């Protein structure tokens, strides 16, 4: 197994003596060439888990194994097998050019210069950045910087790539380019990829598997297709005559309704007869249409994370 995350947990101690249970219990595995989307609302513990895998945050319990080797203790060999681009916008040396950055990160990871140059140029070409190889990073756009950061994380040919919100704050075009690279890495080079994102369309489009985190624990883990298909049967779409009022809105979002316009929403029903409960919720607004629908990841997400939508996943 390429990556095994085995019951990791993390409590942060705060200055005032209190504790934040950022990650309670997270386990999953990842094989070569697979893309795993690591989802969850703000503060769910995604970044903390990613940093534990990368050895940047010390775990309180559990273990992380890379190709069977624990990252604990003398785990530098294991950590050398992964690359990561962490949250934040400036993961590069701004005074250096893309190629110089790549060469530097290659060097500190034991790649000789000639090979680093060769591989760096190839990576930049694949990202369509060969023309920018000689400009300092500070003069590149956010999207290009992010691509260069990914190239820098790949130059020592890691088997695992961790990406924390790789498309955050990027325009559509830049996000597309990142997605294309991520997909290519997995399909063509067999890199195992864990990425976090709040953009459900990105996750749905890219990932083979999803892990959904809530308050530091896994509430859903499965193949992306299966998750959406399995829940698809319970997914309904409603179209209303007019916008619902405050109170109705609160009830609907409480059920995990996801509005795609002010007058239409989707939700997952726990039981078929809840359909009538929803109708009572929206009474007396006229219903233009209501029926089954295929679920998308956003609906699934809302179903599991939305405020109290599901009794099972209450902590």
């Amino acid at each position, binding site marked *: 197994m390429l990556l095994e995350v085995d019951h990791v947990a993390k409590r942060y101690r705060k200055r005032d003596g209190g504790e934040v249970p950022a990650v309670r219990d997270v386990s999953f595995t990842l094989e070569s060439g697979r893309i795993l989307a690591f989802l969850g609302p703000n503060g769910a513990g995604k970044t903390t888990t990613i940093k534990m895998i990368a050895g940047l945050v010390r775990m309180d319990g559990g273990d992380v194994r890379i190709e069977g080797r624990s990252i604990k203790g003398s785990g530098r*060999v294991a950590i050398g097998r992964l690359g990561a681009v962490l949250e934040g916008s400036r993961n590069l*040396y*701004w005074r*250096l050019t893309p190629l110089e950055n790549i060469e530097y990160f290659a060097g*500190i*990871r034991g790649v000789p210069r000639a090979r680093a140059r060769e591989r760096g140029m190839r990576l930049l070409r694949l990202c369509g950045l060969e023309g920018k190889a000689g400009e300092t990073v500070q003069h590149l756009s956010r999207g290009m910087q992010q691509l260069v950061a990914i190239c820098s994380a790949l130059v020592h040919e890691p088997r695992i790539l961790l990406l924390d919100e790789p498309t955050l704050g990027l325009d559509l075009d830049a996000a597309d380019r990142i997605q294309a690279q991520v997909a290519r890495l997995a399909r063509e080079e067999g890199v195992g990829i864990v990425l976090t994102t709040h953009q459900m369309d990105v996750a749905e489009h890219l990932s083979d598997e999803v892990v959904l985190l809530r308050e530091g624990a896994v509430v859903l883990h499965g193949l992306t297709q299966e998750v959406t298909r399995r829940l698809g049967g319970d997914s309904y779409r409603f179209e209303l005559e007019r916008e619902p009022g405050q109170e109705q809105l609160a009830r609907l979002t409480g059920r995990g309704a996801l509005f795609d316009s002010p007058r239409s929403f989707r939700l997952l029903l726990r039981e078929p007869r809840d359909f009538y409960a929803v109708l009572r919720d929206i009474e007396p607004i006229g219903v233009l249409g209501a029926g089954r629908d295929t679920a998308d990841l956003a609906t699934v997400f809302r179903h599991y994370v939305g405020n109290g939508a599901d009794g099972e996943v209450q902590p």
Partner: protein
Amino acid sequence: MIWTALQAELRRELTQMLRYPTELLSEALVTGIIFYGIFLGSSYMAGGSILGSRLSEIIVGYALWTLMLGAIGNMGWGISMEAQNGTLEQVCVGPLSLRAIFALRSLANLLYDLLLTAMALLLIIVLTGHRIDFSLLEIVPFILGIAVSIGIGYLVASVTVLVKRSNQFLNLLQFLLLFLVMTPFTDLKGPLRFIAVIVPAGPQMGVLRHLAIGQSRFPGEAMWLLLAVVNALLWTFAGYVAYGRVHELARSRGSLGHY
């Protein structure tokens, strides 16, 4: 791997320096002007007679201090900036520990600082026509002094990783070190001499001072040289151990980056 990493550090440092040559030039200019000032001042005060001796002492002391300043700069402001930018965490993900990488950075920086200082000195010598006689023997305590600056670098790195914004502390430290390096603790009498042993680069400066006044033989020479070795080991080791501890603490707090 250590070798490719050292090369990478040297190259990154050089590229960043050369990319903004005005900064480099102004730095070299300041060093040059200060050296020149030392020359003028000492020849004025001494009327030229004991110039060669006192002068080289001051210069060696000043050179050692600038090297320590370099270490403070890189391990202090440098790291605090990288923690904010996010490069610190990126550097951390890899087969080399951050502690090892910091050692390489210190080395790379020392090398460039030495080169810069030497060049400034050479320029002054050429311009003024003065000669200073450095004996080969001075190299030993000087290198032992450099070892101390690596230790100090680690200590500064420790403080920076812990508190992130350590500007006041670093400013203060600069002058504290200047005071410590320039004060002749080795001339203290009795048990107070012990201070000279533990003060950063204390014995090293003592030996240099004696060599500079032309006393190639002085009382307790062998002992002070030995103490210089002890002092160098002490500070390097203290810095190394302290950083290891702090790194684990930061990992535990999740505060390696900018949180």
